[in-house]
């Protein structure tokens, strides 16, 4: 068996609005569209995934929050209906996904070996969170690639940010080790919005794009500054500024997916490709790709 590898990592944010706007058959509510530039950005990500032909997609989601350790989906097939508790008007999605339990167990084992509390979620009735589902649907609507779903341990909020980020980086290291030993071709998905300042009122028609723009100029400027650094491959500088970005842009990357992915990819100096940026109820969302291997 040849050594497994991480083919690419994506920043792949999860506003359920994007699924809603696309009107896939799995989602109950119907829309008139909306957020097209972001959805076109995801079209490019879909094309990349198609080219890369990964064996597995690994996704870290801030909407599966766990207090005791880092958890991994550990049931081979999970299905059901996921209703977003925040936007139930937009997202009521019939999901049906296959989990790469072997790789999930390997990631869990490596995380434990690196001193993290980590566990497997074995309850077949578990309802997968809307962050995981939205990200997976937006990159691969065919749902034909097995996944590893990883929770967002609450450490960046419960401990200091530095301690939390350090845990996420260790989780990334564990993920890389498990992938390498698995022999599999893997794609990483950091399910994170950047600037998270948002409007507090929803338009009558949620997809009315005349109402959509950055909620915060400060948040927008932070996002542009960080995206530019990522596009230049200056990832160490990104991570140096990370705490300030989190603080000043109220960035959702605080929940850990981004540092997890960047650490798993060993802080790549490869320039990231920006597939697109757009706002959703005012929050900043970038679809970005780091291509590490063919």
């Amino acid at each position, binding site marked *: 068996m040849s050594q497994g590898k991480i083919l690419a990592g994506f920043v792949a944010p999860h506003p359920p609005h994007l699924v809603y706007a696309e009107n896939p058959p799995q989602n109950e509510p119907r829309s008139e569209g909306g957020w097209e530039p972001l959805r076109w950005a995801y079209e490019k990500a879909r094309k990349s995934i198609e080219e890369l032909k990964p064996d597995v997609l690994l996704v870290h989601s801030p909407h599966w929050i766990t207090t*005791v350790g880092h958890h991994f989906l550990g049931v081979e097939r999970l299905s059901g209906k996921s209703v977003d*508790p925040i936007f139930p008007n937009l997202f009521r999605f019939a999901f049906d996904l296959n989990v790469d339990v072997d790789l999930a167990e390997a990631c869990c084992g490596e995380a434990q070996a690196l001193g993290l509390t980590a566990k497997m979620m074995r309850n077949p009735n578990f*309802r997968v969170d809307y962050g995981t589902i939205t990200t997976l649907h937006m990159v691969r609507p065919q749902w034909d690639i097995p996944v590893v779903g990883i929770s967002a341990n609450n450490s960046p909020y419960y401990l200091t940010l530095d301690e939390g980020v350090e845990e996420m980086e260790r989780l990334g290291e564990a993920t890389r080790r498990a992938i390498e030993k698995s022999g599999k071709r893997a794609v990483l998905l950091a399910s994170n919005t950047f600037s998270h300042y948002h409007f507090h009122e929803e338009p009558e028609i949620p997809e009315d794009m005349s109402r959509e723009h950055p909620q915060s100029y400060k948040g927008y400027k932070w996002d542009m500054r960080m995206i530019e650094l990522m596009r230049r491959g200056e990832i160490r500088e990104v991570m140096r500024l990370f705490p300030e970005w989190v603080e000043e842009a109220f960035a959702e990357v605080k929940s850990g997916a981004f540092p997890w992915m960047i650490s798993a990819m060993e802080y790549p100096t490869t320039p990231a490709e920006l597939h697109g940026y757009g706002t959703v109820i005012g929050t900043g969302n970038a679809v970005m790709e780091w291509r590490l291997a063919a």
Partner: protein
Amino acid sequence: MPVVSAFLMPGNPLPFLRQDNPPWAPLATAAKAAGEALRASRPDVLLIYSTQWFAVLDELWQARPHSTGVHVDENWYDYGDLQMDLRADVSLAQACVAGANAAGHRSKAVDYEGFPIDSGTIVANAFLNPGGTIPTVVAANNLYHDFATTEALGRVAAEQADLQGKRAAVIAVGGLSAGYFDKDIDIAEDRIVDEQSDAANRALLAAMEQGGADRLRAGLDDFAAAAKTDMGMKHLAWLLGGVGDFKNAHVHGYGSTYGAGAAVVEFKLA
């Protein structure tokens, strides 16, 4: 008098899911005793606020006539599934939405099959209202609302119940000190995570027992200074908004839920 009883109930599902675990058993017993007291007060409706149901845009009010199905807690999935069995008092929920909007707190009713009712609401309702026979009005914890706004929402709910001539029980679902064990523990050895949090919990419970909304408010200030709190203790804001004032309280039980503080408290109304 529209409000006939009021209770603080733990939001963490562990005492419900593992009633035989020694550190949690007293909380489960206490919760059942609270259920008896609640039923003795013959409420027509339960006005519930749970810190675990998050909203970020409008204030949300549950208006699904009957929420059923299985709920699996995202943390405590190993300990068993929860059965949703929650009936809404739809006309009162709609009145609360209208009343809250009129008071300037943008509100919306939610009525969706499969909506994930939070673990706290499910277990509090199961302890207090087995079989879900008494209808409820459940309001979300809007993360951007402060204590005062939440109190105003509790007041709206009680006023609307009164306008409909209903006897209401006000239920605050949430914890006390919010520090928890972030590593695996032997659950048979569960305890409050540190002495300072334990002392803060006991002082807050003493303030409730002594009674009076003002003493409780002062107690909450001290509590916030001494411990991490569950969501700014906004569940008690809801309760205070609903009852206005109270004479004293009876602590049916106090204990830990994976290091965090939890209590079952019955408030005696003025």
